[in-house]
């Protein structure tokens, strides 16, 4: 082993994947479709989420191609509207919201807390089925004509003025919402009730903390989205009038209900990603996360404050000026915990022993891009500048920096980091480092020009735009093709590694989490004996002592 890496693999000539693991325990399609094993459900999620990601990605590709030229020439405006609506719906409700929690969270939350499964395994399977039902319904609407309301379903456009499939799309989102509620509920119960003996709250990995915070948002926020969608459906079918100004209703009420969920939803999307980053940064600098308590509480603070800021999406929409003041102030407060996290991660590197494997590269990418995404959020939370920047490409760039530059980077970091544990095999290091760099470059080229476009005033959701914006759009589209390559590469080499990757052994990263102290891939019941936790998270000295006493954990 070179000194530049912490990877310690077992001797490849003798190493074997353990015969009994969660993949081999049972065979056949039904054993997967009817499983209640959290790890198998996580794999089901991983496959389906990747599928939806690439559909959403293809739609994004179409959007970028259309925007290559100022005219609406590749597709007519109504097609373009349907494409960006579907891109938004699929990416948000069927990729970003479930991505890290439903795959990595599902797989590793029980393992990290030393449990055999989530508290409600059948509910967990049910939530995957709900997710699939919602997702397939969304795809179905796409094939029968799509929907062109935008993912925000703005009333009265969605209730009275479009004749596309609002009801079916709404139903799809409604169902997916319940999937998300059940996942969040399951995590909260599991984290409270299933921790191994000795595993106190402040010994938990930060991944658990952040998923816990996100779960609170899922449980308390999503039902409000559900009722908003029910009201839309009834308004559209029966004309009950709650959102109809001619009947005395207020269309802004929908915005209130919708953003009450959908603003916290961005924290649902980003918080689990932050958890991944904490794990990765700690592991590859061989150090406890700097200011563990601060990072843990900042997750909770984001979850709590995240509920008080929703109306900053409506600053110029005619809410009262007093409300603007209050919500703008609260939006400023919610930015602070994110800053705390970024600085603590940076300081975690201090006096560490840093190596640069792929997950770490993605994590560095996350830190840079999330800093930009977070700071530009302040531009929008400040009521004055929001007037100029809202509803332009600045918004588009801002949330793509947070969601794609932040969340997706974190997701990829996590997938690479835990891939050996999930599959028992290593991904190929060199090409994956290349993919990480390509993704980073492609991402910046795609979305940075959009900040400038937004400052210049180019409105979002435009199929055609004034010609002076073309050059920056060309940059953006060029970047998108690079980004596309960056996302295709991992799929290819990860699938390749399933068969040809090096056998990873129990703990290739020499990581401290409980999930690494068992075989890879794990047993169906995770641990042969329920572990007893006698040290804090990220205790690398404990790990060293452990290895000296018992020798390097070997392949079973």
């Amino acid at each position, binding site marked *: 082993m070179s000194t530049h890496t912490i990877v310690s693999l077992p001797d490849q000539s003798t190493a074997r994947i353990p015969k009994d693991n969660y993949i081999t325990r049972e065979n056949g399609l039904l054993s997967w479709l009817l499983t209640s094993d959290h790890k198998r459900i996580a794999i089901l999620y991983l496959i389906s989420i990747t599928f939806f990601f690439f559909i959403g990605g293809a739609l994004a590709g179409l959007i970028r191609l259309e925007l290559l030229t100022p005219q609406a020439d590749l597709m007519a405006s109504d097609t373009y509207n349907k494409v960006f609506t579907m891109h938004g719906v699929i990416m948000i409700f069927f990729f970003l919201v479930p991505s890290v929690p439903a795959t990595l969270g599902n797989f590793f939350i029980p393992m990290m807390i030393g449990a055999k499964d989530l508290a409600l395994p059948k509910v967990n399977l049910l939530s995957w089925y709900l997710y699939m039902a919602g997702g397939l319904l969304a795809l179905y609407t796409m094939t029968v004509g799509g929907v062109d309301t935008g993912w925000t379903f703005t009333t009265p456009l969605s209730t009275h003025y479009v004749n596309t499939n609002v009801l079916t799309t709404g139903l799809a989102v409604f169902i997916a919402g319940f999937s998300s509620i059940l996942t969040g509920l399951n995590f909260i119960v599991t984290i409270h009730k299933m921790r191994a003996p000795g595993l106190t709250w402040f010994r938990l990995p930060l991944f658990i903390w952040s998923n816990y915070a996100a779960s609170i948002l899922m449980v308390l926020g999503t039902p409000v989205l559900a009722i908003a969608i029910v009201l839309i459906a009834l308004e559209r079918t029966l004309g009950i009038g709650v959102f109809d100004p001619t009947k005395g209703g207020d269309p802004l009420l929908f915005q*209130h209900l919708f953003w*009450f969920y959908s603003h916290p939803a961005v924290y649902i999307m980003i918080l689990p990603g932050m958890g991944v980053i904490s794990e990765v940064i700690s592991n590859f600098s061989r150090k406890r996360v700097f200011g563990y308590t601060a990072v843990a509480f900042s997750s909770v603070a984001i979850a709590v404050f995240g509920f008080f800021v929703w109306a900053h999406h409506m600053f110029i929409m005619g*809410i*009262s*000026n007093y*409300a603007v003041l209050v919500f703008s102030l609260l939006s400023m407060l919610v930015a602070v915990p994110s800053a705390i996290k970024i600085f603590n991660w940076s300081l975690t590197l201090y006096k560490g022993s840093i190596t640069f494997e792929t997950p770490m590269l993605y994590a560095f990418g996350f830190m840079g891009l999330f800093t930009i995404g977070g700071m530009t959020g302040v531009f929008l939370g400040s009521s004055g500048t929001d007037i100029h920047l809202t509803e332009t490409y600045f918004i588009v760039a801002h949330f793509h920096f947070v969601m794609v530059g932040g969340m997706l980077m974190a997701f990829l970091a996590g997938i690479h980091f835990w891939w050996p544990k999930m599959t028992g095999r290593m991904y190929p290091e060199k090409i994956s480092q290349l993919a990480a760099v390509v993704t980073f470059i492609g991402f910046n080229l795609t979305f940075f020009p959009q900040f400038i476009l937004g400052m210049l005033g180019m409105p979002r959701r435009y199929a055609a735009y004034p010609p002076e914006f073309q050059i920056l759009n060309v940059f953006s589209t060029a970047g998108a093709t690079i980004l596309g390559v960056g996302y295709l590469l991992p799929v290819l080499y990860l699938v390749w590694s399933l068969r040809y990757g090096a056998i990873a052994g129990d703990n290739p990263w020499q990581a401290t989490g409980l999930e690494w102290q068992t075989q890879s891939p794990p047993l169906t019941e995770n641990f042969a004996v329920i572990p007893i936790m006698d040290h804090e998270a990220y205790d690398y000295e404990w790990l060293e002592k452990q290895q000296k006493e018992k020798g390097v954990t070997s392949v079973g």
Partner: protein
Amino acid sequence: MSEHNEHAHHIVGPGVYVAILFALLIGTGLTVWASFLELGLWNPVIALAIATTKAVLVVLFFMHVKYSTKLTKLAIFSGIFMFLVLISMTLADYISRAWGSW
């Protein structure tokens, strides 16, 4: 009842349930009676106060929260808190809209 459950799980007996039932019935009578009086602004206040009292009785005794863990109490509290945030902050916008522009 298995013995090892006894310490973790408090069983509420029929006596308490009957008492709560009567309290709830009386509360219902009271709130209906109060609604016939003309009290202006106090009508909704009284009705909601009695409804809340009844709800608290149901939660504490029928739903055993009085005997549950702190965790359950905290969870319920946070749920009610978010419920109030949703209502009050939305209403705050609607009420302050009537104040004019500044």
